[in-house]
Structures are given as C-alpha cells and as structure tokens.
C-alpha cells in the first residue's frame, strides 16, 4: 500500500529554485499495476525516485506499508530499498562481467542471505521471468536486450519486495521484445505483485490496469 500526501519536491541550484512536484497525492493498493505517464520534464522521474526511496520529498508525506519515509536518513532509506523495493531501469544496469545468477542474487548479498538460499531464490526468480536455465551461467553482456531486461526484472523480484518500480523498462528495446518484457510484468501482476511503471508512451501504459497522468508537477 502506497500513499502520497501533498508531495512537493524543490531543487535549489544557486539562487534558483525549481519546484518539480507541486503537491502530488496518490494511492496505490497492493496488487495493482499502475503506469505513471507524462512527457519528459513532467516530474515523473522525480516522483519515481521518491516512490523508490531513492530521494525524500521537500514537504508532504510518503507512506509505504504505513511507514512514513519522508524523514529517513540515507542508510535508513537503503534499508527500505533492500527489503521492500525492486528496481528495473531503462539501461538494465547489470554487472557486465558477472554471470546471470550473480547479477540476480546481488540484492541478497546486501541482505546477508546465505549462499545456498541465494542461489535457490535467484533460480526461482529467473524461472518466473521465463529465462532458459542454460543461460544462468552466461555473462550478462552475452545476452540480448530482452534477456538482459528479464534478468533485471528477476533481480528486482529476488528479495520478494512489496513494490516493483520500472523506469522506462522498454525504452532501450524494440517493440517486439518490449511486448515480451511488458508481458512479464503482466504475468507478475497476475501473481500478486504491485507494479508501478513509469513511461512517456501511451502504448506502454496501456498494459497497466490504471494510468496516472502527470504534467508540470501535477497529477491530472
């Protein structure tokens, strides 16, 4: 359960103040598949950073599972990300010279999970995104774009988070592979995962159950 109340985010560079989010309020319940859509510069990336506990709002409250994250320190936020949030990025951000299994189990390294348990969880997550088992020991830079993004989705799943945040997950993929990746999200959502998808394409947002439009820092 995600609840944002009147979130304002202001950046200061020198004497100039830029307000990127101007009082955003929204609610996402568990098991929803929501797309946040808006053109570039609308504030959707900033909203995603706050939802993903990468950043805190200037004012307003952000409740994740009833816990207020708006006043937490860097290390406390890292703790929240470790336990409750999985990220999927446009540029995949896999460790290039590491195997698929090592990439997927990386979040569990920080969660101090035992090696055998890590391996089991990573294999399970990879099975859920439909990656063939013979690729588990490939280096991640030997995979195609679609496979890489599925590995990244498996990585976001592996610590069983409350929320998966995907930031333009199809931005670096062609339409056909993009459809496969979006299908993966739909499948995960059917299995009960809460997914928030950030995109500027209506075509992509169409896969979600609900679309939140954002423009100039306001929800419309």
């Amino acid at each position: 359960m995600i609840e944002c109340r009147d979130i304002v985010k202001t950046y200061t560079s020198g004497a100039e103040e830029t307000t990127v989010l101007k009082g955003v309020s929204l609610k996402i319940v568990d098991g929803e598949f929501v797309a946040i859509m808006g053109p570039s510069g609308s504030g959707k990336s900033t909203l995603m950073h706050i939802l993903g506990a990468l950043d805190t709002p200037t004012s307003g409250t952000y409740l994740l599972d009833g816990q207020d994250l708006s006043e937490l320190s860097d290390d406390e936020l890292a703790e929240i990300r470790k336990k409750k949030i999985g990220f999927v990025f446009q540029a995949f951000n896999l460790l290039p010279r590491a195997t698929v299994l090592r990439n997927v189990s990386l979040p569990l390294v920080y969660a101090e999970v035992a090696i055998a348990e890590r391996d089991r969880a990573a294999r399970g997550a990879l099975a859920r995104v439909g990656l063939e088992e013979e690729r588990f020991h490939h280096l991640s830079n030997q995979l195609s774009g679609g496979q890489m993004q599925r590995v990244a989705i498996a990585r976001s799943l592996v610590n069983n988070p409350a929320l998966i945040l995907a930031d333009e997950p199809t931005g670096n993929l062609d339409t056909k592979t993009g459809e496969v990746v979006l299908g993966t999200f739909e499948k995960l959502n059917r299995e009960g995962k809460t997914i928030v998808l950030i995109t500027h394409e209506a075509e992509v947002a169409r896969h979600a159950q609900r679309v939140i439009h954002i423009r100039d820092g306001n929800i419309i």
Partner: protein
Amino acid sequence: MKTRDLFLETYAAITVNKARSGLTVLGIVIGIGSVIALVAIGQGAQGSVESRIESIGSNLILVSPGFQRGVGTQISTGRGSAQTLTQADADAIREEVDGIESLAPEVSRRYQITAAGKNTNTQVVGTVPDYLKVRNVEADLGSFVSPGQVSGVSKVAVLGPITRDDLFGAGVNPIGQIIRINKVEFKVIGVTAAKGGTGFGNQDDQVFVPISTAQRFLAGGDYVTTISVSAKDQGSMTAVQQEITNLLLARHKISSPQQADFNVLNQSDIVAAATSVTGIFTILLASIAGISLLVGGIGIMNMMLTTVTERTREIGLRKAIGGKRSDITLQFLAEAVTLTFIGGFIGVIFGWLLALGVSKFGNTATSISLPSILLAFGVSAGIGLLFGYYPARRAAKLNPIDALRFE
C-alpha cells in the same frame, strides 16, 4: 555484507582488469621489496661492524695519549707525536686499579721491513705476552713474545699472517728467518692466527716484537702509544675506566678532565658510536625505499579513483538495491587493501631474494628480521587503508540517482 561476500566481490573486481591490478601491485612490490632489502643490508652492516669490534677483545678499555690544551686556549699541541703515556703509567694502572683482568702496554709505529729481498711497510707493535689475552690474538705457528724475551730485550718478531704473506709468500713457515725492521735484524719466532680486518687497521698486517726491544731499538724512549686493559667483566668496565682516568689525572698532575693529555675509550663506547653510524645508514636506506613505497601508494589511489569513476553506475545500482554507505566504503577499501597486501607479500619475497643475492654476490652481510617483515605487511596494509580511503569515501558518497544516470 558478509565477510565472505566481501572477499568474493573484491576478487571479482580485481580480476576484471588484471593488467591494471598487476601494475598497481608492482608499485607496492617494488616499494616493500626495496624497504626489506635495504633494511636487511643496513642491519647486516650493523651486525658485522659490531662483531668486528667485539673481535678486538672482550671488555676492552683502550688508553691512548691525547693532546693537551693549555688553560683558556684553543691551541692544541697535536696528537700525532704525543708521548704523554709512559711505561710507568702502565705499571701504575696494573698496580693500583681494581677489576683488571689483564693489561698490555704497546708502542707501535709503522716501519719499513725487509726480508730476503722483499720489503713492506707495516705496523710494528712492541708489546708484552698479555697482549694475547687482552686483544684475543692467537699464535698460529711458533710462539708469541715470552716474558723472558721482554726482560731480555730480545730481537725477536712475531708476524701477522698478511705480513708473512707479503714477506715470505702465502703459507710459508718463516720461523727462524731473519727480517730487518728499520735496519735492525730480528729473528722470526711465530705467526699469529688470522682475525680478519677491523675498523682499527688490519690486525693481520702487523709485526709484534717485545716492548722493551721496540722502546730501545726502534722508538727510543720509554713512552707507550696505547695501553689495552681488559676488565674482569662487563659490569666493572665503567668503574675501571673512571679509576684509570682519575689515576692518570693524578699522575700527570692535571686538575680538570677537560685538559687531560690522554684518552680512555671503552669498547662499548666504540660499539655505540659505530652502531649509531650504521643505524643512521639504515634509516637513510629505509627512507629512500620509503619514497618508492609512497609512490606505490599513490599508484593505488590513482587506480582506485579511476575504478570509482568507471564503476559509477555500478555503485548507483548497488546503492539502489540496498547497499549502505558503509557497504560501499568497505568494498572499495577491501580492494585497495587486498592489492597492497598482495604487493606486500610478493614484495617481502622479492626483498628477501634481493638481500640473499646481495650477501651472495656483493660480499656484504645482510640480515632479515621478523619485525621488518611484519612491519612491511603492516605498512602495506596501512598504505591500502590510507590511499584507498579517499576513493572509497568518494564512491560511498555518490548519490544513487546521479550515479545511475552517469554516462
């Protein structure tokens, strides 16, 4: 993050770019290796200087004539020809000072020596039989000067092995031959055993004659050039030294020790002086090597900074999936320390081999001590911490949002 994972991450990071890691490690290898090797050479030199000084004699006190300064003047009467110590002084020390094991006055000077058409110029030492005990000399062939030869003013000579080699050839038994010292004929009665060189002139290149003969036929006069005294034990040396000083001051009617016309040197003073010289030498060598270690450390820092920049996105990702500042700091510090530790390990072996090579081919004693090896490991790990800390903090402070966007 668990320790085991930290090692795995470090291993993965270091092996990604083996050439770069290898070159960075090489800097530390050279630094640590040269510290180990140069300190070993310095300590070896220290040890050999000490043992050579010890070989002169045990618990030795040397009394030698000095120059006298007049009251209130800086003009010295000179040291070279000082004849202020006499046979009577030596006798008085023997009679009146407690704690003396044995004592040997000597009168020595360089003379031209000829024998069977060959000639050499060397130190002729007029002395007494006790010289053997005081200065650790042994007769190798024949015998040393006897008490009867001293009282009888016999013209007999005992050769050092090198002088024997110069005059008669190596390994020849010269006993019974005649040599001429300053045109006076002496009969050779013995050869001393080789001792090796010392800082006080080569002890093997000397000719020993009875002191009475030297005084009468060579030096002319009853002055002595050195009185060697051996104390009964190490503990009484200072007391003996002080007593000799007081006695000679009284005999020479000098009121203040500053104006003494003689010097009383304690063997441990000589050792201390020599040790402090070689100690400075060791420190000098170690600091030169330390500079290369510093350069190696800067190499580590340079590599780590490059790594942090190259892996900015990776750092961003690690933070996004829950890595704390301390996790990131630890990871990069571990990389730096591992590199320097590997460098330290190879460096110790390299320095060890270098020191072995120097003692084998350079004819210089070297000594590698456990403390210097432990210190080298400590220093290399410390360099990793010191030069790895800044890059690691820089990585840990990266904002994950900016780091993930970094191109």
